[in-house]
Every structure is written in structure tokens, then in C-alpha cells.
């Protein structure tokens, strides 16, 4: 009984890491844009959903295999992110940030409408690139899909870290995030760096979408719940901290699965699937009230 229970527990942990990895990717996207542009991009989820549709269209209508379609969708999302910044964000970026927020909400509605117009709102299927096998590791049944998702998410995080930490363009991106005025003085083309940030964020989001769709099916609302989870993860980790976004995402993924696991016991039997999303919202509220800078964020210091 106990052994079975432990296996069950570990299974939930692994599944939680997989969904947490997806939250982490989208949360990273939110953090990158918040650091550079200073707003939450409410269209981040819809941009990811659009890219996932692009991959689906390539696979379904043009006979592409999953991975080439995956790479093409990432390329598309990068360009889409850059163009979005240049065309719709940059013109409203100066001055009131509320204008940018409203534009991202407009973008959310626009992309959602476009996808329904183009591909209809019917649910679609994307085959899992990892198959549907279950492997047994030390008595714990783990789906290959989960392992693959964790690996891809981890790979993206490592790539991003390498880019930010060890390349000239990464250094410039960080410089722009912490002090754009100063960055311009040393010759960094700030507006292009911001656009690049939007491109990278869109790419991360696309990976999140492409990892989500095989297990839940593809429809225009694909990323709406994920965006809330990602927001909760980013707030939990600290909205300005890339590391926080990753840790926050994994904590949230595993934490929610722990609650599901515990619901088999009488004490927690009130916790049903329907409470997952409200739990994320509760986390946002509690973190903002108790520790607004999150786990890894810096408290905002204003120099007078």
C-alpha cells in the first residue's frame, strides 16, 4: 500500500515538473518582456497559440513531420514577436504604460479572432512528438511525454541562460533591461534590443504551446489557463527575475499536482481539478500582498 502510494506520489511529481516546465517557459516570456518593456504582455498566450496553429497547419496541411514544424513555428514566432514590437508596441511605448497594456489586450483579442477565422474554433489534434509510451523507472510509471517536455523546457532555459550570460547580444539585452538610457550611451541600439526581447519571448511561448497541445488538444483557448499559471509563476518567483520564473513555474506545477495527490485523503478531498486555476489566482493575490517582489525579485528601490 505504502509502496504503491509512493510510486503514485513520484508520478505526480514528474507530471508536475512537466506542466511546471511549460508554466516556466511562458513565465520566462512574461518576465523578459516585463523587464524590458515594463508591462505584462497579455497576448503572450495567444501568440503561443498562434504559433502552435502554424505548426499544426504545417503538419496537417503540408505533411511536415513534428520536429521540422516545431522549428519552423519557433522561427515564425520569433519573427512575429519582433514585428509585433516594431509595428504595434513601439509606437505606444513612450509615455503611459497603460497604453501598451491595452494594446496587448487588443492583440490578444485580435489573434484569437484571426485564428478562429482562419482555422475555425474546432478542437484539433497534434501528435505527441514523444509518443504515448509509459516507462517504468523504479516502480514509478512515467510517461515519455512528460520526460520529453521536461527535457525540452530545461533545454530552452539553458539555451536562454547561455545567450544572456555569455554573448555580446545577451549582455546588451540585460543592459537594456536594467538601464536603457545608459545602454544607448554606450552604443546599444535599444529599440532593436527590445524587439529582440519580444522575439525571444514569443519563441519561448511557442515552445510552451507546442508542448501543451499534444496532451490537451489544440483549440483557440489553448493557452488561456496556462497564461494564468505562468502569471502566477512569474509573480511567485519575482516578476523581474528569470530564475524566479523558472523556479516559480516548477513549484507551481509540482504544488498543484501535490494538491491533486493529497485529494485522495479525506482532509483534502475538497480539492478537485476545478480548483487548480483559482489556486493560481490565490497565489498571485497572496504573493502580491505578502511579498510583492516574489521569491527572487528585488524590492523596487526608487532613488529620489
Amino acid at each position, binding site marked *: 500500500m505504502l509502496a504503491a502510494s509512493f510510486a503514485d506520489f513520484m508520478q505526480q511529481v514528474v507530471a508536475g515538473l512537466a506542466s511546471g516546465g511549460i508554466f516556466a517557459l511562458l513565465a520566462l516570456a512574461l518576465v523578459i518582456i516585463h523587464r524590458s518593456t515594463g508591462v505584462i504582455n497579455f497576448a503572450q498566450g495567444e501568440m503561443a497559440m498562434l504559433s502552435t496553429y502554424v505548426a499544426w497547419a504545417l503538419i496537417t496541411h503540408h505533411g511536415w513531420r513534428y520536429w521540422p514544424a516545431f522549428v519552423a513555428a519557433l522561427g515564425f514566432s520569433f519573427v512575429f514577436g519582433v514585428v509585433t514590437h516594431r509595428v504595434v508596441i513601439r509606437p505606444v511605448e513612450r509615455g503611459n504604460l497603460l497604453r501598451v497594456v491595452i494594446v496587448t489586450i487588443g492583440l490578444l483579442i485580435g489573434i484569437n479572432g484571426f485564428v478562429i477565422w482562419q482555422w475555425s474554433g474546432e478542437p484539433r489534434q497534434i501528435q505527441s512528438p514523444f509518443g504515448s509510451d509509459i516507462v517504468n523507472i523504479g516502480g514509478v510509471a512515467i510517461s515519455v511525454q512528460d520526460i520529453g517536455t521536461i527535457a525540452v523546457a530545461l533545454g530552452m532555459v539553458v539555451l536562454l541562460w547561455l545567450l544572456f550570460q555569455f554573448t*555580446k547580444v545577451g*549582455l*546588451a539585452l*540585460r*543592459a537594456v533591461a*536594467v*538601464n536603457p*538610457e*545608459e*545602454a*544607448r*550611451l*554606450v*552604443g*546599444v*541600439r*535599444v529599440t532593436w534590443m527590445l524587439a529582440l526581447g519580444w522575439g525571444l519571448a514569443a519563441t519561448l511561448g511557442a515552445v510552451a504551446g507546442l508542448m501543451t497541445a499534444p496532451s490537451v488538444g489544440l483549440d483557440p483557448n489553448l493557452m488561456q489557463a496556462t497564461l494564468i499559471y505562468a502569471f502566477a509563476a512569474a509573480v511567485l518567483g519575482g516578476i523581474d527575475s528569470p530564475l524566479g520564473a523558472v523556479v516559480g513555474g516548477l513549484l507551481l506545477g509540482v504544488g498543484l499536482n501535490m494538491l491533486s495527490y493529497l485529494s485522495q485523503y479525506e482532509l483534502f478531498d475538497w480539492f478537485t481539478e476545478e480548483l487548480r486555476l483559482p489556486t493560481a489566482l490565490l497565489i498571485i493575490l497572496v504573493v502580491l500582498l505578502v511579498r510583492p517582489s516574489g521569491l527572487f525579485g528585488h524590492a523596487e528601490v526608487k532613488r529620489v
Partner: protein
Amino acid sequence: MTTLLELDSLEARYGPVQALRGVSLTVTEGEVVAVLGANGAGKTTTLRAISGTVQRSGHIDFAGQQLKGGPEAAARAGIAHVPEGRGTFVELTVLENLKLGAYVRRARTVKEDVRRVSEYFPWLVDRGGQRAGTLSGGEQQMLALARALMSRPRLLLLDEPSLGLAPMIVREFFRTVRRLNEEEGLTVLVVEQDARIALASSNRAYVLEVGRVALTGSSSELQGDESVRRSYLGY
């Protein structure tokens, strides 16, 4: 001696407020030129107009070419601007700050440049991994200077380097600037409240009053000038 920088009737404004009302000024290659003046005279704005961080009109010639565009263009033309109040990236490390200084240049020579710059600031070497924000005010100002040197500038713009620093640190800072000028032929345009040290460290100076050049001459001349002494040197 060739003219490196020439401002001709330069005007600049912050929205409706006109900060520069036609400033004309030249800097010759190899010179240290100081700009003095009271608060609000337009000293900082003059530098900001040169590097293109403020709306400007009039003519700027740099190294025989008209200077156009924003600060990115100025940096690429060879102008390094150390802004008021320790222009460092406090969240980045000392080494990262230096690397950003060389942003407009090829990456290949960056290591060599770090070594070259460290000769003037030996303490930088051991503290490359430290966050710039953890340095003292004086060290941050030195780092800002070191970072500016990383770009191998043809012209260095210094904005109020003495601000908020202890007198001893200020003297050390200006000593380093003089050394750079003498040993590397670095051309400097420095804006400074502390007229005494600015005049002592420069070849020539301009005195600004309400957005115009009120007075100009060699620094030794100005040190002896009655009105400068009374208004800016205070004795």
C-alpha cells in the same frame, strides 16, 4: 592641431523649456576643455545635446563630419559620454560594465583593452566579478571612466564627475583624467560645478550663463579673472 568638435549656435530644449540658446564652442584634439556655470546654465544640456540625448538644433561637427542622430550614433562616431551621477550598470558586474563600454567595437580586442584600462585602475582587476552597485561612489565613478575608455573614444564627455564625492577622490579622478590626456592624448570636454579643480585640470574653459557662452579663455586666464573668481571660485 585640428579641431575635433565644433558646436555652432547649438540650441536644445526640454519640451517648452529652452535650455541652450545658441552655444558655440570648439574642442581641439588633445585638449582638456572645461565648461563652467551655475545650476541651470546649460552645462549638462550641452553634453546631452552633443551625444543626442536631448532635442537639439544647430550644427555639430565632429572630426570633420556633421554629427547626426541619437546617442547610438554618437557612440559609434567615437564619443564616450559619462553621465552625471555614476553612469554604471549597477546590477551588472564590473567586467560586464567594461565589456559594454567596448560594445561598439570588435569583440576580439576586448581582453586587451581590459588590460590596458586596468593599468590606470589596477583595483579593477580583482573585482571584475563584483556587482558595480556594491562599489563605493568613488569606485563607481572610476568604473564609469574606465568603461568610457573601453570604447577607445576620440572624445570623452564628463558630466559633473565630482558630484557627491569626497575631495580626495575628486582630486584622484582629475589626476587620472590628466594622465590619460598626457599619456594617451585623450581629448576631454568636462562639465563641472567645482570650478577650482576644473580650471586646474584643463587647458581652456567656457563659462555658460542661461544657455549662452558668457566667457571663454585659457584656464589660467580665467583663474585670474575677477568675475570668475567672485562667481565661481568664491574668493
